[in-house]
């Protein structure tokens, strides 16, 4: 198991390097030049040249890449071209705000998804199955910015129970009252993971239930709860794979949901950086998000191997 973990960690290095190259290359391909946006059109050519040199945009691409990579590896993400603030600070704050939504949304979505999926599979073909599956499909198909607005209309405007938008706190919520602003965005964001996980869990549990060993479990005289434990553990690796991906998407933030709830998360930050051609912010955001994506999938790989010994090789 330990060698498996070590090998997966080593595998992550070339993946991250590849990601960094891809990110750097793609950002370079974006049309438009940050210096043009920063300086007025009538700026003298000397000033443009001076600014270009200051940001290192005059050097050959591979030199730019390696110096950027070197600085990034040392934790120096540079300064925003637009605001002049350190990228690291903006990014930490935005990612933190997204985390505060993503973690509870993932927990809620995964718990509901596993519950609905298992329920549907164990009652295959009955109205319970149909109701649970319909609920899951609805969750994936609803445009969630629309659902967010409906939630706001019901719970904020009509009932006045929950805040319509804004975080109302910094970092982590300090009290129950502050946490109320989390409810609507978290519920909205949990819909897609819930639906996707429910579909996969239902299919996987059905597959497991058709395996011969389930007959053995019943022939052993185990009670339903014990049989369920066996089935879920067998279904877990497939479900975890999907959960890892879904959590990765949540970390990227949802620009639509963040806009509806005026939430300063990573989706917001990235969107803003793209419109401003703020190259350092874009590159840093994408690379850090990609890093988390790789990290989450690494953890999923390890968890799968811990659950299913046949994966450890």
């Amino acid at each position: 198991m330990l060698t498996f973990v070590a090998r997966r960690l080593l595998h992550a290095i070339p993946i991250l390097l590849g990601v960094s190259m891809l990110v750097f290359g793609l950002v370079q391909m974006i049309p438009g030049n940050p210096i043009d946006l920063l300086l007025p059109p009538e700026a003298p050519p000397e000033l443009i040249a001076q600014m270009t040199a200051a940001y290192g945009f005059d050097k050959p691409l591979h030199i730019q890449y390696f110096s950027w990579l070197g600085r990034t590896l040392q934790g120096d993400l540079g300064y925003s071209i637009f605001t002049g603030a350190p990228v690291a600070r903006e990014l930490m704050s935005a990612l933190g705000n997204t985390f505060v939504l993503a973690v509870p949304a993932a927990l809620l979505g995964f718990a509901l998804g596993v519950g609905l999926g298992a329920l549907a599979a164990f009652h295959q073909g009955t109205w319970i199955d149909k109701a649970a599956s319909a609920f899951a499909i609805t969750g994936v198909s609803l445009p969630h910015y629309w659902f967010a607005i409906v939630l706001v209309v019901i719970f904020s405007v009509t009932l006045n129970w929950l805040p319509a938008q804004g975080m109302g706190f910094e970092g982590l919520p300090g009290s129950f009252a502050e946490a109320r602003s989390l409810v609507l965005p978290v519920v909205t964001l949990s819909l897609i993971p819930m639906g996707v996980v429910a579909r996969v869990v239902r299919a996987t549990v059905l597959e497991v239930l058709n395996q011969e060993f389930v007959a053995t479990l019943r022939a052993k005289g185990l009670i339903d709860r014990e049989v369920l434990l066996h089935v879920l553990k067998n279904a877990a690796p497939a479900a975890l794979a999907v959960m890892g991906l879904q959590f990765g998407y949540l970390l990227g933030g949802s620009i639509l949901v963040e806009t509806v709830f005026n939430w300063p998360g990573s989706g917001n930050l990235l969107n803003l950086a793209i419109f401003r051609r703020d190259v350092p912010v874009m590159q840093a955001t994408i690379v850090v998000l990609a890093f988390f994506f790789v990290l989450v999938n690494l953890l999923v790989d390890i968890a799968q191997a811990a659950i299913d010994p046949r994966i450890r090789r």
Partner: protein
Amino acid sequence: MKHEAIIDEPMVEVRDLHVSFGKGAGAVRAVNGVSFALRKGEVLGVLGESGSGKSVMLRTLLGLLPAHARTEGTVTVAGQPVLSLPPDALRRLRGSTVAMIFQEPMTAFDPVFTIGRQIAETIMRHDRVGRDAAMKRAQELLELVAIPSAKGRLANYPHEMSGGMRQRAMIALALACRPSVLLADEPTTALDVTVQIQILLLLRRLQAELDMAVVFVTHDIGVAVEISDRIGVMYAGRFVEEAPIEALVDAHAHPYTRGLLASTVHGQRKGERLETIPGAPPNLAALPPGCAFAPRCRHADDRCRAEAPEPRVVGPSHVARCHHLSAGR
């Protein structure tokens, strides 16, 4: 908690059992009137081709059929009416008084739990002991089925064992709560021939030591002869012949039994061409009105095709269903 049977009361008694799947004309009739009784310490071999209903019959004995199966008749196992037992009582019967061994030990074990854990959880469920005591008992069971270095094997996952070893572990699992009835569903079919013999000898020894009643389902007549006291030959969901082992080999009465015996390989007929039974087993969704074997039987006449034969006594404890009993000899 064991239901000790009085000397002559059968451990397993099946009366006119019918099992079908689906309704109306398209229903698949897997078992069509099986009756037999099995005493303590007795081994009944159930011999039949694939699709003869033998596995369905065996699973019925443990109430393991899918929910859409329809059953008729009575099944009494260790004094319990299996078909009408409430789920909880049925669950207590399974794995404790009545245990089952499956054909393919690779798929019959849960791949993501250790062998030790899978044996121990049965013991913990039925005998209400703690994990340590259950693990200790699991180790004794692995020793009982002659698995070397049993203690270390407890921590093995099913895929870490060889086929023969897995089937030994499966037997250990079945014996976990000292069952009085053992149901074996082709337990040697998936194994190499040399391993088959070891497993058969092991089963035979344990059966005698623990005085279990065993129903042993197989399609291999050699295996059936090796392990059984009596054999029921199953065709299209019926016992077409049931006899003590010597009578079945030497004085079989049914043409199907004769065909089965003639189509096995053995040394005395070296160089001769093997006989086969022409045709294929009948479609269980569209059984003929008469004898189900008639379309493949060279003795069949109009009566065979019109009227299903009733069981007739051929000798002591020897029964066959055929209109032309002497033709099988």
